[in-house]
């Protein structure tokens, strides 16, 4: 599984990339692989606010429908609308083209609760044992 070193991760398999006070979010390579071919995505409205752990969107594959959980609290400032027409991007390129939302963080200290790449790899090893 591809686990980029410069990202942070949640237990629900979202990744976060920090760009100043904005957190860019998507789902991990493990998550896209577990879901299988993604056929539909529902992203939040720009301007809406979420708490850490809130369901922020929906990702649907032929196998299952899953919520996407917000990794950090804040306001949605941008969403990747291109994914709605090309959800397969999440399967092929989960970390770059497959980004889903950008959140202006209200409490950047919440980032400390997320896993770094090493911790996430260990978590995946335990999950898949």
């Amino acid at each position, binding site marked *: 599984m591809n686990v980029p070193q410069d990202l942070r991760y949640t237990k629900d398999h979202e990744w976060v990339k920090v760009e100043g006070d904005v957190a860019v979010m998507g789902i991990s390579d493990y998550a896209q692989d577990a879901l299988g071919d993604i*056929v539909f995505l529902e992203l939040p409205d720009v301007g809406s606010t979420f708490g850490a752990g809130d369901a922020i969107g929906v990702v649907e594959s*032929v196998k*299952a429908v899953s919520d996407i959980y917000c990794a950090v609290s804040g306001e949605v400032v941008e969403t990747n609308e291109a994914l709605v027409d090309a*959800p397969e991007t999440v399967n092929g390129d989960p970390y770059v083209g497959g980004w889903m939302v950008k959140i202006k963080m209200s409490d950047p200290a919440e980032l400390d609760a997320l896993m770094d790449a090493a911790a996430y790899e260990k978590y995946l090893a335990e999950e898949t044992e």
Partner: protein
Amino acid sequence: MSKLYGPCDTPGSTGIAYCEPTLFERSTPGRVGCSLGAPDVPAPAQPPTELRRAADAAWPEVSEVEAMRHFVRLSQYNYNIEDGLYPLGSCTMKYNPKINEDLCRLAGFANAHPADEHQGLLQLIYELQRDLAEIAGMDAVTCQPAAGAHGELTGMLLIRAYHEARGENHRNKVIIPDTAHGTNPASAAICNYQVVPVASNEQGILDPEAVAAACDENLAGIMITNPNTLGLFESNIEQVAKIVHEHGGLVYYDGANLNAIMGITRPGDFGADVLHYNLHKTFSTPHGGGGPGAGPVGVKEHLAPFLPAPIVVRDGDGYKLDNDRPQSIGRMRAWHGNVGVLIRAYAYIREMGAAGLRKASEMAVLNANYIRAALQDLYHLPHPVPCMHEVVFTEKDLPNEIATMDVAKRLMDYGFHPPTVYFPLVVKGALMIEPTETFEPEALDGFINALRKIHAEAQADPDLLHHAPHHAFAKRVDEVYAARNLKLTADME
């Protein structure tokens, strides 16, 4: 040629398979399927122009024989419980005795008007309420809910009404194990409850400690499916119920799998406050076309005042509808619910009797374990213990990257409906098999032999599985392409 008629170029292994277009594609302007006489009463007043649609609805225009052929051909695509084993785990596709069909068509029932307090029908509903209460160990039953999830909604509204009547509106959390039915979280959320998931333990069942850790003063209740979706009996249920009750919560028991325990044990005796019954599973009424179903709800005495009104009660020597229920959550369904389904279920219970219902559960559990024992050397069993009415295998250890879906599709070539796949979600690549009690040993052996042959094929010729089915009407369907590229054949304007 715009319409596809006649035999396909890729027929099934037996018989003739037709390519059948949708009725909308078959439509020919001006063609009709019936001829009505001239009206012999004055034409009714027409609604105001602004309320009428601008153009006629785009109904398909076909002759009677075209409509008939269309639906007969579609029915031939279908695999039904009269064809053979339909081992769809969690759905309980048991054979439905045909005498139930005769009885629900008795003129007295079939022609009854729901506004009449039809004594025979009220007596039947009353006795069904009583029998269902007895089977699950509950005190009162409503037959209104029209399906399992509708029963769940009813049950959760009852729990909400109970807490509110006690001035405990702050209770906003409902615990749901990860082995519960998928509809449970939705039912809790729709009643504005916050869902607190609790993971099952390594044995695939609930730990009382895990439930205790999730309990606090905001607990409204727990929704527990037992036997759970791994086909395992929640053997800690009594203790779990006690913990929930100690925190002031109520126990919602998803009775969809009641078919595994009839006459053996009763949810009401081990802590359930409210439960629903799936008549279309346990009590052998048809699932056809997604319904109609029936999901009666049973409650203990302390929830009875909140039941939907009306319920059927005794009235001297007769029966009546009791609408005088000031604490009722209100009506959940028009009239008496899906009465035809209630009649079938009543007929089934009467035919079977107490001993027969117990035997049905015993045979359902025995059949599932027969399949488990016959296949566990080839197919990975995440919980290698005796199961209840269904057994869950996984794709782990299958050779040559064979996935659950490949096995399911190949089963169709052997003439079986595939089992439930990729559910429950707590195990990866689940193959969830529920044979029910209604198949003879020869049918079970046929199914087992097919799965054993498929395992051998997986080793010798994996592509055979990757591209299965080969003998079905439709070959391997590209589900991803279909989901991403909808093909609309009707003009929906």
